[in-house]
């Protein structure tokens, strides 16, 4: 059998998630889908599995066009998808999860099938155990056998190796090879070069919503990197000044987040220093930022800032110590829908007595709008501003003398002009002694503005680089988990 995607297009407003993608996969092929965050891989696979509908384009199975309106159609066509965070029902048992949604109802038959399939791949299942107690890797295994029992002929795995152990990964790859050998089409979506290289026969590379290349493996790594990230970037020299005192220090910090565990993290950041956090989504950067902010209590270790150990202390104490956090979700975690620009400034600013002086508040807001070139009026609700202006607003809301500024993806979704502007303001603060720790998926940004870059992979810090001594290629390899040494 064969599977083909023809000219798939999907737009979310102005964002072109999939801009005319075509792929063809043959029977028994292990096909990799490679690309960085935001390249459009997830959207494409959601379309293929029926979770969302494409705006245009066709899904073709065995040279027959399939009407793909819902997951039902996908399942009927034999397409099964394993999500990055497996969509299982936590309070239900393993057996119940296995059976749910399958037209065959016989429990006993199901149980023996579950155990048989599990055994054939080396997976161990306890049918009555609640799925909540299973690790991510085990949940994956459950999903795989479930899809097999459902009759899947195409298996899509979305970033399967995030959060699973090495043993589980080995088992997984074994299973996939076996399945491909039996004629299954396996689509392996990942950012991790090394794994795609190890497992797949062919790979399609996506960038910015397009499929930019379809090559058989093995292929030269540099070629893959170039396809993933685009042309190598010229690194502009940053004027590195002398650094001041310690702004924040992490010592043997251990933090547990849902899928990520940071262990024994040591970091010393000086005033006026810029630290860039590099790595794929979910590798640990957000966890680090949130623990520094005080939103995530570490299991152990020290977090010193402003002369005190803040580990485990509440968020507002971190703020009082001069640590401010700008999360990635501008409207979800930073701004408030329905609240105007002027009101945001009031919320973020110093309280001057209980009563609001609206006139002076509007004046102040107007001043700040001009100062930060925000396109919007004092009465514009936050959601009416464009992404770039929302970011400007968030920055404008930051008080002047911040000691440590934690930012997630400061320029995500912004055009070049806005991004430049954001960084010029940030550098102003740096010159005044603010330390910045920021995460980004943009290699150019990381290289250009950081003093040091910390690379995360699978929940661990795998490298701490001097930005001046590294280049885009090396950085990209590290991010993909491949160390050139």
């Amino acid at each position: 059998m064969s599977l083909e995607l023809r000219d798939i297009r999907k737009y979310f407003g102005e964002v072109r998630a999939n801009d005319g993608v075509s792929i063809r996969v043959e029977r028994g092929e292990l096909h990799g889908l490679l690309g960085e965050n935001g390249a459009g891989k997830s959207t494409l696979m959601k379309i293929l599995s029926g979770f969302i509908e494409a705006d245009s384009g066709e899904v073709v199975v065995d040279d027959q066009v399939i009407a793909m309106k819902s997951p039902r159609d996908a399942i009927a066509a034999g397409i099964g998808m394993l999500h990055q965070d497996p969509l299982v029902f936590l309070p239900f048992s393993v057996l119940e999860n296995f059976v749910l949604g399958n037209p065959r109802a016989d429990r006993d038959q199901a149980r023996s099938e579950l155990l048989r399939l599990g055994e054939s791949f080396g997976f161990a299942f306890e049918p009555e155990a609640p799925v909540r107690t299973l690790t991510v890797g085990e949940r994956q295994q459950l999903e795989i056998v479930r899809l097999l029992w459902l009759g899947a002929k195409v298996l899509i795995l979305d970033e399967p190796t995030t959060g699973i152990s090495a043993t589980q990964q080995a088992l997984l790859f074994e299973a996939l090879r076996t399945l491909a050998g039996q004629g299954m089409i396996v689509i392996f979506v990942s950012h991790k070069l090394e794994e795609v290289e190890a497992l797949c026969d062919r790979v399609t590379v996506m960038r910015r919503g397009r499929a930019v290349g379809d090559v058989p493996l093995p292929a030269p790594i540099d070629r893959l990197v170039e396809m993933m990230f685009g042309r190598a970037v010229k690194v502009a020299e940053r004027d590195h000044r002398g650094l001041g005192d310690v702004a924040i220090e992490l010592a043997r910090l251990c933090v547990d987040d849902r899928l990520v565990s940071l262990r024994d993290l040591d970091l010393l950041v000086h005033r006026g220093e810029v630290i860039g956090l590099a790595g794929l989504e979910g590798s640990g950067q957000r966890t680090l930022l949130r623990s520094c902010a005080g939103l995530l209590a570490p299991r152990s270790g020290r977090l010193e800032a402003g002369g005190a150990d803040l580990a485990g202390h509440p968020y507002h104490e971190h703020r009082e110590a001069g640590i401010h956090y700008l999360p990635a979700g501008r409207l979800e975690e930073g701004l408030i829908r329905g609240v105007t620009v002027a009101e945001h400034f009031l919320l973020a600013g110093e309280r001057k007595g209980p009563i609001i002086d609206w006139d002076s508040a509007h004046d102040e807001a107007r001043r700040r709008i001009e100062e930060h070139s925000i396109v919007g009026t004092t009465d514009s609700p936050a959601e009416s501003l464009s992404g770039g202006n929302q970011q400007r607003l968030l920055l404008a809301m930051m008080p002047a003398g911040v000691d440590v500024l934690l930012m997630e993806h400061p320029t995500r979704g912004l055009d070049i002009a806005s991004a430049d502007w954001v960084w010029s303001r940030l550098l102003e603060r740096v010159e005044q002694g603010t330390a910045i720790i920021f995460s980004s998926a943009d290699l150019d940004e990381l290289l250009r503005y950081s003093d040091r870059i910390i690379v995360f992979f699978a929940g661990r810090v795998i490298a701490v680089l001097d930005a001046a001594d590294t280049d885009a290629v090396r950085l990209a390899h590290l991010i993909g988990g491949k160390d050139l040494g």
Partner: protein
Amino acid sequence: MEATIATIVATAAPLVYATMGETIAEKAGVINLSLDGSILLSAMAGFATTYVTGSVLLGFLAATLVSAIIAALIAFASIELNLNQIAVGFVLTLFAAELSSFLGRPYVGVRGTAVPHWEIPLLSDIPFLGAVLFDHNLSVYGSFVAVIAAYVFIFRTRKGLELQGIGERPEAAFARGIPVNRMRYLYTVLGGSLVGMAGAAYSLDVKFGWRENLTLNFGWIALAIVIFGGWHPVRAAFGCYLFGALQVLALKLQPVSALQGVSQILPILPFVLMIFTLVIVYLDWFRRFGERHPRWQRLLSSEPPAGIGRVFERE
């Protein structure tokens, strides 16, 4: 003694219907806050229809229909209009209650037809159990069926498992090809129908008649019992019978002047128990206990379906 228990079983029958209905709807992820008003309106409709047509069966049908429509309205408002279930349910409960008073006026104090008594032969001769369980009428027997059917359906059938999935994690159910919203409509209306039967059971059996606020806070009590019952039909039914027992106890205590106050406090108990249950869920040790004893886990668990009250959107 037997007579007392039989009374408890009979008195609790309407509550059982309502609780089973709401458990199903909430398991599917939809909160029907209009219970109190729905039951009132259904009770009135059932009684009025029976009075006019002389047929108890038609009365039950009418009652069922009324609550089913209200439930459908909530589902519609939530799924199609993206409105908050609580808001719509709340407005509906007040509206339906007032409507029942208004439309029911002509039927106040009127003698109606009751559900005919029907002793089940043979079974009713069993010592003790016979008198308690099998010496009632169709309405009460129906309540038994409701509990058994609800339990079997939810926990022992494929469709029931899907129902649980819809309420627990609609995205996951959707990914498995289950038409989430369509099913939500179905189960909400099904739940509503059972709620309607509760109303009819009340006005045509337990209380034999209609007057304003006949079913006094029934719906709220049912909501509380659903929570106390941990969204498990059998446990909820137990809660209903417990409440029925408390009611009968209150009646017996009434003539005793020293314990006057106690009999008034009894109706509060389900709510105190409900709050207690909700707090317990929050406590870690309870959850760990459940994990160590998986066979009891389901019966003891008090967590709501995780997706309850939320609207399911595809993208």
